């Protein structure tokens, strides 16, 4: 054991940098940030479009510019940063096994650990697109990296499956670099991307969006030559006679992101099957004391500002834990109820500070009533218009509203309002 840290943050993207800032600004003396890439910034580095930072910095920044802001702030602190360093393993007693070409394989000790390692893209294989395994089908994020960091196009005539934000942004991006983008197909009857991206990336460039459609065939020899899409009904069954074929050499997939949690599941951290991220309390602490999770490795966010905000909090709490400032109040479970897919945090400790519930609805609703209940008693009701699964909702409440001596579970639900 060579070194001891108060807090070790794993991942140097927006979440990791914010978390390290949260830790160091809340009293942690020795903070280590580990990043596997050659520079800080994570996926922000390949997001060269603008629109980042409206909430946090009150201006529109590109991804690299946003990363630069956090990095500048971080470099003013005494956080120790290890680049080109991969964490291979963490343990329940909070050691971190890491490796790089300079220090070799090292085991360090930390009083608390924050896992902020983002997510990975769902691939063709995971959604079972039938057909041959020729080249020309890849995830949108991978194509984005090739284009924006390495400077190469992966194809000339493109179709996109999935209307997640990465897919929408890559539609515009490839069009701007001279590729033809023939359309975007979305399985759901609504888009999974932010509304502003539908407008700015598709409408502005006359790229058609085929809602309730999916890819039913791909063909070609060594390279993709054709993509066939078909309409689906409300049970996602393909409707006969609705197929359309596009001659393309590239199919980009924007079909979902999966939080990376192998480091956590290896040590039996409980994982929410809905989000694929850890179950956390309102400190962002997992079921293993002193191990925290935040950012997209906890749940997939739509805005980096929310990642930064949440991760700053997780870093702050990790610092508190390291400095033995944690409190030991009762934890009450928080659960999603009608029309709510998931809620974070998954449990809260009753105290006198505030908690923010973040959640997503299961379907688009024009008008809705958000209800927070404890047991049968309604704690708070909030009227809302335009609730969309693609847009994360949040409700901030003072914890003193909850019954202090009750073990009653808390529910977050949404009722449609006519």
């Amino acid at each position, binding site marked *: 054991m060579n070194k001891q840290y108060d807090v070790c943050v794993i991942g140097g993207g927006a979440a990791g940098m914010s978390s390290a800032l949260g830790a160091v600004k809340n009293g942690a003396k020795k903070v280590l940030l580990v990043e596997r890439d050659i520079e800080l910034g994570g996926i922000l580095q390949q997001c060269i479009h603008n629109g980042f930072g409206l909430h946090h910095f009150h201006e529109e920044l590109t991804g690299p510019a946003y990363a630069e802001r956090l990095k500048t702030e971080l470099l003013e602190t005494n956080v120790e940063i290890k680049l*080109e360093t991969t964490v291979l393993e963490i343990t329940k007693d909070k050691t971190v096994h890491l490796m790089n070409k*300079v220090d*070799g394989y090292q085991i360090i000790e930390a009083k608390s650990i924050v896992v902020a390692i983002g997510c990975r893209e769902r691939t063709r294989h995971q959604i079972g697109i039938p*057909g041959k395994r020729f*080249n020309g089908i890849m995830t949108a994020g*991978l194509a984005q990296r090739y284009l924006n960091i*390495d400077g*190469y196009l992966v194809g000339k005539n493109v179709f996109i499956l999935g209307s997640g934000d990465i897919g929408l942004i890559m539609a515009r991006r490839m069009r701007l670099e001279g590729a033809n983008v023939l359309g975007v197909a979305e399985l759901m009857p609504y888009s999974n991307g932010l509304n502003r991206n539908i407008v700015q990336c598709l409408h502005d460039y006359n790229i058609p969006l085929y809602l309730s459609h999916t890819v039913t065939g791909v063909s070609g020899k060594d390279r993709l030559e054709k993509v066939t899409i078909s309409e689906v009904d409300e049970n996602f069954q393909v409707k006969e006679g609705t197929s359309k074929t596009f001659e393309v050499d590239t199919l980009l997939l924007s079909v979902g992101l999966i939080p990376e949690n192998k480091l956590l599941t290896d040590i039996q951290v409980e994982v929410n099957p809905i989000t694929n991220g850890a179950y956390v309390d309102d400190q962002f602490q997992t079921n293993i004391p002193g191990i925290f999770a935040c950012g997209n490795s906890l749940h997939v966010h739509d805005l980096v500002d929310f990642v930064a905000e949440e991760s700053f909090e997780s870093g702050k709490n990790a610092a508190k834990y390291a400095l033995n400032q944690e409190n030991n109040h009762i934890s009450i479970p928080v659960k999603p109820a009608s029309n709510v897919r998931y809620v974070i945090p998954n449990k809260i400790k009753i105290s006198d500070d505030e908690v923010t519930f973040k959640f997503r609805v299961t379907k688009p609703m024009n008008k809705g009533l958000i209800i927070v209940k404890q047991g049968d008693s309604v704690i708070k009701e909030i009227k809302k218009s335009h609730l969309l699964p693609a847009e994360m909702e949040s409700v901030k409440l003072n914890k003193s509203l909850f019954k202090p001596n009750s073990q009653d579970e808390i529910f977050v639900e949404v009722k449609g309002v006519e």
Partner: protein
Amino acid sequence: MYDVTIIGSGITGSFIAHNLAKYQLKVLVLEKDVEVGDGVTKANSAIIHSGYDPKPGTLKAKLNVLGNKMYEQVTKELNVDYKRIGSYTLAFNELEEKELRKLYQHGIENGVETYLVEKEEILKKEPNIKDTVRLGLYAPTTGILAPWDMIYALLDNALYNGVEIKTSNEVLNIDKKEDHFVVKTNQSTYKTRYVINAAGLYAEHITRMVTDNPGFKMNFTRGEYYVLDRGYDDYVHHVIYPTPTAKGKGVLIVPTIHGNVLLGPTSERIEDADSTEVTKVGLEFVKNHVNQMINNTPYKGIIRTFSGIRPKTDRLDFIIEELNDTPQFIQVAGIESPGLASAPAIAKMVEEMILNKESLETKHDYKIYPQKQVKINEKPIDEINRLIKQNPKYGTIICRCESITEGEIIDAIHSPLGIRTIDGIKRRVRPGSGRCQGGFCQPLILEILARELKVSKTDILLDKEGSNILTEETKINGGDGNE
């Protein structure tokens, strides 16, 4: 003039090359694809079957049993991971139970160690098996390995001992001369005394270059599979077979040597040797059949699907013989399951066929290739640190899912055989075979390949010729403003 030219670098061609490397022979291996072993060997269940299943008296039965025994030594000699994890073949109804007892007899006749086991014993060893199971056949000698690990070891060793291997060489024509053949490929022309046809799916096609009577018809059967991520160690511990039917061994559940699990295959007659698609119907079929045998299948852990094609001839047995009307043309065709298990014995048989015709001396300087493949994630910490001091690139992880370092990738590129493609690197060293399927590491590997091979990034192939990943550079002359 070559003494022997082997067409095809699959598992049989590679074993034959390995065996012939011992003799004072000039041996050539021709492979049409960019990387070796890119056909039948690439996509199968990766099992070293014990040998109770093939019909007694067939070549399949004889060579399977013999091959299974030979794997122990050859994998040790060439330092290839191999595990005899054993298998259970399961019967769920009366009919299957009867069939299973017949198989047990096959096992005895073929000389394979097997045991009939009761339900309780099965459920004790494999708790996820459905409790409707009635009887099992336990075969302790069933083994698993990675077919391509085997091929790389065999061919590296063959190369080291003077065998020549030429990839991207598709055989277009074979000219039969009095005492030799002239083999024309898309690259060059080679003279050779013997031709060994180990062309897998294309065996009939190659045979027709020298005779109008190949003596068999090649059919193609496709098998589709799922691959589960590593980390489901409690799901199954043995190879799980249903009771086989006339169609074949059925849908299996197979732990892999790398800790994944394969589910599959289907068995569907197809027309083309290159119809390697997966289908919705096929994949559903796999799920249904898996669900009939076992509970708690972690489908959420699916990281890949693939299909492979078996070269199933109308003679229903392996065809290993010298062509009647074409002496010195040795046929090694129809090597479907249990081809992988039989490969060392097939090679031995071919070797003996040549020995019967030629008096051959062994090479005085024959040596096993001292494999230096470093596997960082299998080493103890102080050993890792010693290696990183020697070569810092062993300290940089490129593939995070499988913990593979830059040093290991560079080693593979510069191995005797050499690796040129993204998929070749994946098969040899494993980056890209994990959860993200290359989503993070592919650009890094592409960059390392381009750098080490000194070619442009747009030249890097995923796999076969024409599968370039990057189509066009966008930043040419960018930034200097002098265009």
